[in-house]
């Protein structure tokens, strides 16, 4: 790497390195100096927290004082001397209103110097001891503080460890204040047990986070006379425990001796652990001293937020220095070097006329320039040599290129052969004609591999037998030759799925003896490769040559394998295609059988229906004697039902035929008017049979004159129109049913318009779907098979038309279609459009 770096860059980097070192030193100095600032910050935070704790402590003290003052005020207004029970009531009343969580005992020194005490906190105090009036014991009243308070009236804090009653001895911090009432002067003092106060101080320190600031630091509270009242987080060892007051006093001494720092902190030698520490201290409002100490080694050092700006400044300086250095180096070293480099590059590109400058310089640049000059002259010489050689080389390359071209052409020819085989294999798929294609394949192999024999064997569908499906052997053509699946060369190839090459087929132990009978095999040297499809052998290709010919090479084996691989998918496809065709044929045949069955069944149904319908019909019109009105009604119903049944049978058979592709139309030129007469008669008879008979429906036929014959299946078109008209009759209660037949430009338009219930747009898609019935049809219980319209649509489409519907719900519908004027030779094959109705039928079954 380093070697590849240009001299200029090296110089820059060296200078830069020196700069970086200088800057690092500067940075370290800056960091160190700012560390003292950091220390001061940490300590002042510590001091601040201590001050906050002092504030809280002061508030507690004020609280306690306030409570005592309140009680004193109370006592100023009541008699304290006479009735002790009244006094107790008054005190309890006061306490109920002014509870205090720290004060455990309220003491009232009465003017007669008897003392009344109320215990309020300690639940262990016996009932008798909650309120007690007692003679002041000498020890109590001799308490200097109480004396002082009683004499000069100034409230005061004091610390005592006294036996108030007979048994209890409690260390307390207390506050005393004078009161005066008509009975005289007295003192109130309240006691906070030292233990209670200590835990209160501890809680404050915790809340303020003071103790969290330090591990081995601590907080102490001294009263005005230097007695240690509370200590928190003090290190614990036997020496300290044993000599706590003395060591605490020593601390105060050292504190006095020390010089406060600017931040109000004091640095001193800690007397507990004898290590250097900082102390922050403050006087409480009652003159007590609260201090907290933190060991020197706990003060944090430089965090990143202070280091980062310093680093940034350093980097900036580095960048500026880099720029300056770069300019200097560039002027004196880099520019000449770059010029020389450009000269060298031009020499490299063959321009030897280049004059080398800087040769006169005495420094390294000059040396480089001289070296370049030497190189230039050497090169000039070499170029001459080279141009001589290159001419010879060119000749050789030309020769080689011609050779390669020849080889390439041959390869192209091979590729073309392969391509042809592949194309032929594709034919197999399209034509499903396996044998002709395989025969062509065999012929091509003969020329391509230069073999005298080729045979293709395929496994049958059950994969039990191998059959010779194509061969170059005339004697085997047009014969069905089958061997067991593992027999012979082909069988072994299929069995192992790998190519087999045999030098002497006559002595090949697995050969099929019967294959060539008495005659000799048409080859001696043989090779066989499997036809593989999805990892399975489906057959084999065997090729052979006479003994005089050359042996099969590896290259030939590869070539034949390639052929086999190309052909086998197509062969397999063809086999599958044949199977599929058979399956489809089977399915179609099954469908046709079904249709034929249905056809014969319907014969059995139509025969009795002929009897039923006609007997009823003749009976209805009185052919068998007079019928009553009711009998006529009943007979009408019966005929209608029987007809419905007949239509259902016909429709089912039609659908089955369409489904099976068996629907045949018999189109011929036919007279439209004759068909219409029939249809009109039929519609009128339908209306007559309506029950109750409706005179509100008028049937009108409006038919153009001069309609030419249409090329159609009359029976089927009559079926379509009858269907449309019978639908109109069924769905119309009132108004007009209009059959209109008009000559149009392209054909004859048939339309059936009714004023019936119409078809809501959401029901439209169902109309031509088989077995679907509209909601209206179901709601109004209208007879129908749900097959009439799909069949009609199919029939009209087979005539080159399309039934269309215009309908407005509640207003009526128009069903119409146009039958084109068709020429007689314009035969529409029904089979081709079967898919249309199949689509209709299948979509409806969803």
């Amino acid at each position, binding site marked *: 790497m380093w070697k590849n770096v240009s001299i200029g860059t090296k110089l820059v980097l060296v200078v830069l390195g020196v700069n970086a070192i200088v800057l690092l030193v500067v940075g370290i100095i800056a960091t160190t100096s700012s560390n003292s600032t950091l220390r001061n910050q940490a300590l002042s935070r510590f001091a601040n927290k201590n001050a906050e704790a002092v504030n809280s402590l002061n508030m507690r003290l004020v609280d306690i004082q306030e409570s005592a003052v309140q009680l004193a005020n109370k006592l100023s207004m009541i008699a304290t001397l006479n009735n002790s029970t009244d006094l107790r009531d008054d005190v309890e009343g006061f306490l109920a209103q002014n509870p205090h969580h720290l004060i455990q005992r309220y003491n009232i020194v009465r003017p007669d110097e008897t003392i009344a005490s109320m215990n309020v906190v300690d639940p262990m105090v016996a009932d008798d001891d909650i309120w007690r009036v007692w003679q002041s014991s000498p020890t109590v009243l001799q308490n200097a503080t109480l004396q002082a308070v009683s004499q000069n009236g100034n409230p005061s804090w004091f610390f005592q460890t006294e036996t108030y009653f007979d048994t209890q001895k409690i260390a307390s911090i207390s506050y005393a204040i004078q009161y005066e009432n008509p009975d005289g002067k007295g003192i109130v003092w309240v006691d906070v047990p030292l233990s209670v106060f200590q835990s209160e101080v501890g809680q404050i320190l915790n809340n303020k986070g003071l103790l969290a600031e330090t591990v081995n630091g601590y907080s102490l509270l001294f009263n005005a006379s230097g007695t240690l009242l509370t200590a928190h987080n003090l290190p614990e060892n036997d020496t300290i425990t044993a000599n706590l007051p003395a060591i605490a006093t020593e601390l105060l001494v050292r504190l006095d001796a020390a010089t406060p720092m600017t931040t109000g902190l004091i640095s001193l030698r800690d007397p507990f652990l004898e290590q250097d520490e900082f102390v922050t201290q403050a006087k409480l409002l009652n003159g007590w001293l609260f201090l907290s100490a933190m060991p020197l080694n706990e003060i944090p050092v430089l965090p990143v937020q202070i280091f980062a700006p310093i680093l940034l400044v350093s980097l900036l300086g580095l960048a500026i220095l880099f720029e300056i250095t770069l300019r200097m180096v560039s002027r004196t070293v880099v520019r000449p070097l770059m010029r020389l480099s450009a000269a060298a590059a031009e020499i490299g590109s063959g321009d030897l006329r280049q004059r080398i400058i800087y040769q006169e310089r005495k420094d390294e640049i000059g040396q480089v320039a001289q070296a370049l000059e030497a190189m230039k002259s050497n090169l000039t010489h070499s170029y001459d040599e080279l141009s001589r050689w290159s001419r010879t080389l060119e000749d050789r390359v030309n020769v080689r290129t011609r050779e390669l071209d020849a080889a390439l052409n041959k390869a192209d020819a091979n590729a073309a052969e392969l391509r042809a085989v592949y194309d032929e294999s594709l034919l197999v798929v399209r034509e499903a004609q396996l044998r002709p294609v395989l025969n062509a394949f065999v012929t091509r192999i003969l020329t391509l591999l230069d073999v005298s024999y080729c045979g293709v064997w395929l496994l049958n569908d059950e994969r039990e037998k191998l059959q010779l499906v194509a061969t170059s052997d005339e004697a085997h053509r047009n014969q069905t030759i089958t061997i067991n699946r593992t027999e012979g060369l082909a069988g072994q190839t299929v069995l192992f799925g790998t190519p087999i090459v045999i030098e002497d087929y006559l002595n090949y132990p697995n050969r099929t003896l019967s294959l060539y009978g008495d005659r000799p095999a048409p080859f001696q040297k043989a090779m066989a490769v499997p036809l593989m499809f999805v990892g399975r052998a489906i057959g084999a290709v065997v090729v052979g040559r006479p003994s005089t010919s050359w042996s099969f090479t590896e290259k030939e084996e590869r070539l034949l394998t390639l052929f086999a691989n190309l052909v086998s998918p197509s062969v397999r496809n063809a086999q599958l295609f044949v199977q599929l065709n058979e399956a489809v044929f089977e399915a179609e045949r099954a469908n046709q059988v079904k249709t034929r069955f249905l*056809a*014969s069944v*319907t*014969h*059995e149904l*139509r*025969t*009795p*229906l*002929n*009897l039923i*319908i*006609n*007997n009823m*019909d*003749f009976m209805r*019109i009185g*052919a068998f004697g007079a019928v009553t009105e009711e009998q006529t009604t009943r007979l009408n119903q019966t005929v209608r039902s029987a007809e419905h049944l*007949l239509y259902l049978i*016909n429709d089912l*058979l039609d659908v089955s*035929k369409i489904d099976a592709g*068996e*629907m*045949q139309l*018999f189109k*011929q030129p*036919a007279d439209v008017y*004759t068909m219409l*007469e*029939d249809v*009109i*008669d*039929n*519609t*009128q*008879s339908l209306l007559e049979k309506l029950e109750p008979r409706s005179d509100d429906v008028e*049937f*009108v*036929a*409006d*038919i153009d004159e001069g309609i030419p014959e249409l090329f159609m299946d*009359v*029976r089927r078109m*009559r079926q379509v129109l009858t269907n449309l008209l019978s639908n109109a009759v069924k769905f119309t209660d009132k108004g007009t049913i209009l059959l209109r037949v008009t000559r149009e430009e392209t054909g004859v338009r048939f339309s059936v318009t009714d004023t019936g219930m119409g078809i809501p747009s959401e029901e439209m898609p169902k109309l031509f779907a088989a077995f679907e019935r509209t909601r209206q049809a179901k709601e109004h219980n209208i007879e129908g098979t749900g097959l009439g319209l799909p069949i009609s649509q199919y029939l009209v489409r087979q005539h080159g038309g399309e039934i269309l519907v215009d309908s407005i719900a509640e207003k009526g519908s128009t069903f119409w279609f146009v039958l084109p004027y068709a020429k007689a030779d314009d035969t529409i094959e029904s089979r081709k459009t079967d898919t249309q109705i199949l689509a209709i039928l299948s979509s409806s079954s969803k």
Partner: protein
Amino acid sequence: MENAGTEAMSQDVDLSKLNALVVEDDAGGMAIIGVMMRYLGIKAYINTTGEDVVTMAHAMQPPPDIIFLDLNLPRTTGYEILKLIRADSKMKSVTVVAVTAQDADTEIPKCKEAGFDAYIGKPISRMRFPRQLRRILKGEAVWETY
């Protein structure tokens, strides 16, 4: 505008002067044909087996104007009978109508092929039968079902 009363169009053939021969094996079917013929005033002979149809036709005086052949018969078929009729010198040009309950799509082509003059599928329709008959007698193509 052409209204529904189309009866007049085909009334040129007087059905009551017709002589018909009906071949029908089914008793019910026979009865219906009988009723229909009577209803139309046609004089009809009925053969119930399909045998000796030609003999029967020869015996009829006057000879039949029209023969209705059922296709399915116990021992023969309508096609066989038609062959006999067409082979008979006197009867070969008589109008022969196939009347059957078989599937029309199957039978109509066969009937046309065999040389029937018309086809009326069962059930026959009282409403339509008279006009169908008139059209057949006029030589129109009638290959119809109910």
